[in-house]
């Protein structure tokens, strides 16, 4: 029913607040798009003008060339795909074991999964990076992890710390608990192994969670910045879109390159934005479930 009642008594006031807020939310995005069309010397000069003089597409061409955009795109796509695939697979497998199989140590493992959610990500940046750099017998390292760049030479380093997600396991497990045991038992009596039970019966029933978790993971992985920045300093070949665009922004004369940076940002934001617009119900449900955005 009605909220504070304000909306009913003063509808125009409510519209004013909501529309003002929405405009404030959208204007930075519009400014980004408008700036991406501005010509050289047109951005960042006084007086400020919102609209470009002409809708100049050359910044997009410049972004593709100067940013090495195809390589950045490829790295972002590979990392995001590997992370999303791995999180879905491991969450589903672990969630099934924790929800539907009986084995000694199950409660202990479940508690461990919950405990992992208590540790904030910033705690792990340094040691994980050092562990990858000093990984024995990889990337030119000797047995004691000396001499080379370790696992950071591989594009897999971008994905490694995100391959398993405690929240994902938790979400899957909670959803799978609700699947009736009788269905699984019937399949087992028919001779189906546990793997077949999981793949043929459980996985199809968890489609809604798969979409939600997949979408949350995809967006996070695509937008991830700090870890990708660390790995890229060790190995510039695996630079992702956010890292590459930030590098251009940091190192070149901002007044001249701002439109190019904005063009790069528009292109890098677009895939996630389209995905969000298509599947926003699932995404928003995921945010409600995690509550931690």
């Amino acid at each position, binding site marked *: 029913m009605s909220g504070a009642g304000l909306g009913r*008594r003063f509808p125009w006031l409510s519209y004013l607040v909501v529309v003002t807020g929405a405009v404030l939310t959208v204007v930075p995005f519009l400014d980004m798009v408008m700036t991406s069309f501005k010509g050289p010397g047109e951005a960042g000069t006084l007086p400020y003008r919102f609209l470009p003089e002409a809708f100049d597409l050359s910044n997009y061409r410049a972004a593709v060339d100067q940013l090495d955009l195809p390589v950045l795109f490829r790295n972002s796509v590979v990392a995001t795909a590997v992370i999303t695939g791995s999180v879905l697979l491991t969450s589903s497998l672990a969630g099934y074991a924790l929800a539907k199989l009986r084995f000694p140590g199950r409660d202990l493992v479940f508690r461990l999964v919950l405990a992992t959610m208590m540790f904030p990500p910033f705690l792990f940046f340094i040691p994980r990076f050092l562990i990858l750099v000093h990984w024995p017998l990889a990337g030119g390292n000797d047995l004691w992890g000396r001499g080379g760049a370790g696992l950071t030479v591989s594009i897999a380093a971008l994905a490694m710390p995100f391959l398993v997600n405690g929240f994902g396991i938790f979400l899957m497990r909670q959803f799978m608990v609700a699947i009736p045991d009788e269905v699984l038992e019937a399949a087992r009596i028919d001779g189906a192994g546990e793997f077949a039970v999981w793949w043929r019966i459980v996985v199809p029933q968890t489609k809604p969670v798969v979409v939600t978790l997949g979408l949350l993971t995809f967006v996070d992985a695509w937008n991830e910045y700090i870890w990708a920045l660390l790995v890229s300093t060790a190995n510039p070949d695996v630079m992702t879109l956010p890292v590459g665009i930030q590098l251009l922004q940091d190192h070149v004369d901002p007044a001249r390159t701002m439109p190019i940076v904005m063009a790069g940002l528009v292109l890098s934001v677009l895939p996630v934005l389209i995905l969000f617009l298509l599947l926003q119900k699932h995404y928003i449900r995921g945010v409600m479930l995690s509550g931690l955005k």
Partner: protein
Amino acid sequence: MVNALVPETAGRAPGPRAAEPGAGGLDRLRRRRRRQTVVAYLFLAPTLLFFAVFLVLPLGFALLLSLSRWSGFDLGDIDPVGPDNFAALFADGATFLTPVLTNTLLFALGTVALALAGSVLVATCIDKLRFQGLWRTLYFLPIVTTVVAVGNVWKYMYEPGGLVNGVLNALGLGSVAFLQDPDTALPAVVVVQAWASLGTAILVLTAGLKSIPGTYYEAAALDGAGPVTVFRRITLPLLRPSLLFVCVTQFLIGLQSFALIIVMTKGGPGNATDVAALEMYRQAFSYGDWGAASAAAFVLFAVVLAVTLAQLWVFRRTGEDA
């Protein structure tokens, strides 16, 4: 969230009682149990391996580093020096307590205050409007956008020739060097962080508002209560769990965030926007002081953990479910 933290143990035995009694049945049952154990750990193997390599090992390594001096090159050179790194963080003349930790708290508190005020305002107004889906989509845009885009667009808008100063100039006001002035840099970054978290806060509060029974409002209307009274006496108290949830989660996120600050100010000017997680990052990757960086990480972790436990305690005590 909190209810779900209690693992259920009852009612999930996969029907062993259905098996026929007798020695053969028991044997088969035992074999099946063993097979389920093997399968379960097979299914859990990737997860447990990941936990070992990317959670337990790094945690131990970080703890060791926080108590050591190390050049970063040879693992054999790690020199355990005890709590020196922690002592150095809080020594006289060190910047960690002020301004770094102070900045961190101001950043987190400022974000919570702004996001809360904005989301309460919008959520109470949005409830009965048309085009709800459209508003929600718009308010959610910043959440799905990478911090590099958010940070750079706002950084550009704060510049002398940017949108914000353009509006100020159009109103006849002078330009402000938002990110270059140590007095305005932190508030300027706080605004961006709050702007980016508004969508989630509105979502949680809208859900909270929807769960308030409409009969309360009808009764208040019959009693002739004005909108301000209704808001203060009905909406706010019943919205308390949602408000508390938004406060705590946004506060925790604010304590840990530093990506936006790296993009916008790199902690500057001076250390006006230096926060604890950024200081950890800089000590490690700019100065190679792994010990100081790890110690800073654990101090911040202690703060985060204290807030988390306080939140759990409050929710348990009041029996409220976020």
